[in-house]
């Protein structure tokens, strides 16, 4: 594992450095711009948006759009705001992320430390599932969920997300465990630890960095998913569907400030996990090297 703080040996001149800083700052602005636009306009009354400059700071600051988006905006037939859907999302995301990460960890463990004939094929086949366009699975998935009696339930939604998430989590854990010394597993075997005990006591305690990557990746993907949520969510639709209902309402006045506030609200949890320092650190820990 490379230390994150490792210095480069490259030295640069003053002028070059100034140029580098300038470029980096310009790009920071580029990345921040849409967020700024959303943030600023979510704090304005509607009239200031339709009549004023999008980039301008609010002349009259207001938190009303946020309050409205959270608890009073019209999502369905009731003006509930995004609040109840937020809970739906949490109830779906947490188990889905936990299960897919644990399954991915176990798969990665088997594929690297308990190798068998054809294991690369098994892995290759599982990995390809990461690249399947989700639109094509909707109909057959609906049939399967119906047969399982899970149509329109949170459990069904969790199942869907786990199924299409384990490709990625297995990839992450497999690449991570590949660099984990196999001798340790052998030592533990001689010490008398069994399959699960070795996983639990030897591998899991050192899996922190990759578990973070896997959790963040899964969390982001599942949280942001719209297609599965709208198709299989039934009456416990996730946040994205609610946001879509808020933003896409077919007729009536478009309350853009509320839309922006809602969009930021819907993105907050993922922003929170991304901006934490662990993700990059985990990426550095070798997840993308393979």
């Amino acid at each position: 594992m490379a230390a994150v703080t490792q210095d480069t040996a490259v030295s640069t001149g003053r002028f070059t450095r100034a140029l580098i800083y300038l470029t980096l700052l310009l790009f920071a602005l580029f990345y921040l711009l849409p967020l700024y636009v959303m943030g600023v306009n979510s704090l304005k009354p509607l009239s200031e948006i339709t009549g004023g400059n999008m980039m301008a700071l609010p002349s009259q600051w207001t938190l009303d759009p946020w309050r409205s988006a959270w608890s009073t905006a019209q999502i369905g037939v009731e003006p509930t705001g995004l609040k109840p859907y937020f809970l739906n999302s949490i109830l779906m995301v947490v188990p889905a992320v936990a299960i897919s990460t644990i399954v991915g960890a176990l798969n990665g463990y088997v594929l690297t430390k308990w190798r068998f004939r054809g294991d690369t094929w098994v892995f290759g086949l599982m990995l390809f599932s990461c690249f399947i366009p989700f639109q094509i699975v909707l109909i057959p998935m609906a049939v399967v969920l119906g047969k399982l009696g899970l149509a329109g339930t949170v459990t069904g939604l969790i199942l869907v997300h786990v199924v299409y998430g384990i490709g990625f989590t297995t990839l992450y854990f497999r690449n991570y465990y590949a660099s984990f010394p196999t001798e340790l597993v052998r030592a533990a075997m001689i010490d008398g630890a069994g399959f699960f005990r070795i996983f639990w006591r030897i591998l899991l305690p050192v899996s922190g960095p990759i578990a973070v990557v896997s959790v963040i990746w899964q969390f982001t993907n599942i949280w942001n998913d719209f297609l599965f949520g709208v198709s299989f969510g039934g009456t416990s639709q996730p946040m994205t569907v609610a946001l879509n209902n808020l933003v896409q309402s077919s007729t009536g006045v478009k309350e853009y400030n509320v839309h922006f506030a809602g969009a930021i609200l819907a993105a907050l949890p993922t922003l929170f996990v991304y901006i934490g320092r662990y993700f990059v650190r985990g990426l550095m820990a070798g997840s993308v090297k393979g």
Partner: protein
Amino acid sequence: MRLFGTTMTAAAVLVMTTSITFAEDVEVLHWWTSGGEAAALNVLKDNLGKAGTGWVDMPVAGGGGEAAMTALRARVTAGDPPTAVQMLGFDIQDWAAEGALADLTATATAEGWDKVVPAALQKFSTYDSKWVAAPVNVHSTNWVWINKAALDATGLAAPTTWDELVAVLDKMKEAGITPLAHGGQPWQEATVFDGIVLGMGGDLYQKAFIDLDPAALGGAEMATAFDHLIKLRSYVDDNFSGRDWNLASAMVINGEAGMQMMGDWAKGEFLKAGKVPGTDFVCIRFPGTQGSVTFNSDQFAMFNQTNAAKQEAQVAMAKAIMDPVFQSAFNVVKGSVPARTDVSNEAFDDCGKKGMADLAEANTAGTLFGSMAHGHAAPAAVKNATYDVITAAFNGEYADGAAAAAALAEAVAAAQ
């Protein structure tokens, strides 16, 4: 495996706490999520609630119900359809053809729906002479909304023919405003085109859009219609692409633009802005379509239910929808007109009264046509094929109207 234990428990708890629909509830899939629409729908919900029928809401907004239809397909394929689904035109027929819809004939006969629902609507509400859906409203789509001040400035009267329309638009252009407020989305262009074709005569509309006659679709009249559409493009500002229809309405409201060609739902925007019909804006039929109406109708299609209690709730809901009091209350809020012709027009404003009268008149005259743009003339595949050509024509991708007409005939043939 302690962690395993907890997640499994969590999963088990989730299974049990997942909102369970009680037998006497109706689960309603719809895309009416904006303030006015939801308020209108709430009337229905409350009426049902008073009768002891619960309401499980499943709103999926976006694109005139496209996302909702995707969700519906997943639900039906899974064998777990919602009780009632907001649906437009041919979608109802398509679902009925799949055998997915419930039979409401007994209720309909008892309540006498045949007599009060216009025949053109019944074409969609019934399949194989069985009632499968309850119509909520009728939107007529061939309206033009004109800013009164801008019209007065031209010194001309509200246009009643294509030539008058062009004259008014030219004057408005001279006056330095955008003559035509338009949003560049396929369905909006198709809405305008509906008006143009109907303006060329009900016969053409019937032959081309309802009978899908290749000769009419690719013929000279259709070529002229496309020429008119291309002509209208020259009255639209350059920033039209992707614009939502209500932003276009706003342009007319604040005088930035002269007029908008849009269905009756646009009225809500004018009213909400505090504008008065007749004083601040005028509503006219698309020039040349006086006496004819293209419509779309929101209906609630009832899906097959196996549970007897659910079937009961479904019938209760169908009855509640068809209740004249509800039809009046709902349509006053929504801006459309009732699907029943026997509802009192007392609660409606001038435009609403005119709409109801036009509908009744067109119904008796046989000039009530399903709107192609809104999926009431031909099935979805054909509708979208026409969208492709109309949008392309509007965006100047064909050399002339004749080329566009030929492309239309070809596209429609391919989609059938």
